[in-house]
């Protein structure tokens, strides 16, 4: 597997109104491989969302560089799609029209657009709702639309920022299974931000554990389990416990984040 994304000595500072500089990320180094499912895991304030914004091109690093296929990231790019926690669906467009949006922007001809829409509406199982508007759908269904909209432009990388964070536990489990299935079908590289340890263990090939003040990579843990994964499996629980310890050992105070 080749390296898809290279993060080299990245710092990110934010300057507050009163002039104080807050270091959100410090000396981050990481290689993300082609076709890998990578989870960024950590508590609030650990810089995972900052790192995510840098990867997706919404912000620029203060120092260091981020390369995707050898090219520095200078801004958002349709080849690297982002899925947000709040879906970002256009309420004035139906499910179909939402999925079609990226293809319209790319100037794909109408016939081909329809084909793609059909394919991805089916992939996320929303055939019955293709003419519905977002506000008529549940949160889980809305996130499926957002995923289909991103996939329709056939991106090489999916960046997902706590995409299931707003969903209830049962729906979240189902969406996790769904995204693994979709990833199996399409084989994109996925960078998935979460603060849910079980979610990370269920999804990831590797889990990047981050710690705060300043945000940095604390450890990288490979999850060498086959799929589909069973949340009650012995290996699953063992890896989960390793991560629990990882956080518990950092500082005693931060323990309450995870219980």
């Amino acid at each position, binding site marked *: 597997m080749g390296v898809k994304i290279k993060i080299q000595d990245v710092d990110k500072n934010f300057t507050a109104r009163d002039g104080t500089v807050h270091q959100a990320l410090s000396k981050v180094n990481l290689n993300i491989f082609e076709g890998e499912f990578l989870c960024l895991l950590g508590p609030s304030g650990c810089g995972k969302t900052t790192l995510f914004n840098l990867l*997706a091109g*919404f912000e620029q690093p203060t120092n260091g560089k981020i390369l995707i296929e050898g090219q520095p990231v200078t*801004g*958002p*790019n*349709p080849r690297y*799609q*982002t899925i*947000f926690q*709040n879906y*970002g669906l*256009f*309420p*004035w*467009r*139906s499910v179909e029209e939402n999925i079609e*949006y*990226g293809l*319209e*922007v*790319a100037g794909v001809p109408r016939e081909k657009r329809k084909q793609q829409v059909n394919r991805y509406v089916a992939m996320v199982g929303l055939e019955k709702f293709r003419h519905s*508007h*977002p*506000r*008529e759908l549940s949160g889980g269904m809305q996130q499926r639309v957002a995923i289909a909209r991103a996939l329709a*432009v056939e991106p090489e990388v999916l960046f997902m920022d706590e995409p299931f964070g707003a969903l209830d536990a049962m729906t979240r489990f189902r969406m996790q299974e769904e995204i693994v299935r979709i990833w199996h079908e399409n084989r994109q590289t996925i960078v998935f931000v979460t603060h849910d340890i079980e979610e990370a263990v269920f999804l990831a090939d590797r889990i990047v554990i981050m710690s705060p003040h300043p945000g940095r990579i604390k450890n990288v843990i490979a999850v060498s389990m086959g799929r589909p994964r069973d949340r009650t499996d012995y290996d699953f629980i063992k890896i989960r416990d390793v991560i629990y310890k990882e956080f518990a050992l950092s500082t005693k105070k931060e323990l309450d984040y995870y219980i």
Partner: protein
Amino acid sequence: MGKKSPTGLEKYLLPLLTVTGLLGIWQLVAWLGIWKPYELPAPSAVVTALVELAGQGILWEHIGISLYRFFIAYLVAAVLAIVIGLILGWNLRLHAAFDPLIQILRPISPIAWFPLAVIWFGIGTKPALFIIFMSVFFPVLLATITAVRNIDPLYIKVARNFGATEQDILRKVAIPAAFPNIMVGLQIGLATGWIHLVAGEMVGSQSGLGYMIIDARNFLRTDVVMGGMFIIGGLGLLLSRTMSWLERRVGAKWGFAPREEG
């Protein structure tokens, strides 16, 4: 808000009761003859006057010319205000340049423009059009600017991620996203425009509902004055309802939740 919301039939019966009750009291007071008929004409006299004017065709002429003026001025003001509002809402630097000017002009009542309107445009339809324009333009402009500036930044982020150009975003994201709030401005503009139509016609015009009222006052035809007022009120209500209906149609097509009617 009361404890019980009205049932279907009550929604129509209750206001009907209020209106007939008030009309009854008014008719009774007029019959008592405390005031002279030209001071307080009876509702029956008002209806008679209206029927008479309608029979002569004068009423329809005035209504026609008023509606015509209103639509022209409203359309021009609304289109200009939306276009300028979209530009100013989108471009932060232009907004910074023009905002103080807008803030100074906005609180000036359209009626304060009367003297200038007559000096600039003379007597006739033009000053009335100008007054309506002024009363529609600012509410729609401000609503549009606010609508554009309050667009959820996530929509813009998504559009940029797909590689949309600035123009793409304005056309396919900003305008539909701002639509519900622009609509609020169009409703307010409709109301203020209609209010000032009558005012505008009272000064510069020789026709229209406003002129009809002033003209009737000069002949102490209070019944016609009141009749004219009712016509203006009724037409205003009709316009506002038509607008709400249009809003719901477009809103339904674009998947927005219907706004509660105020």
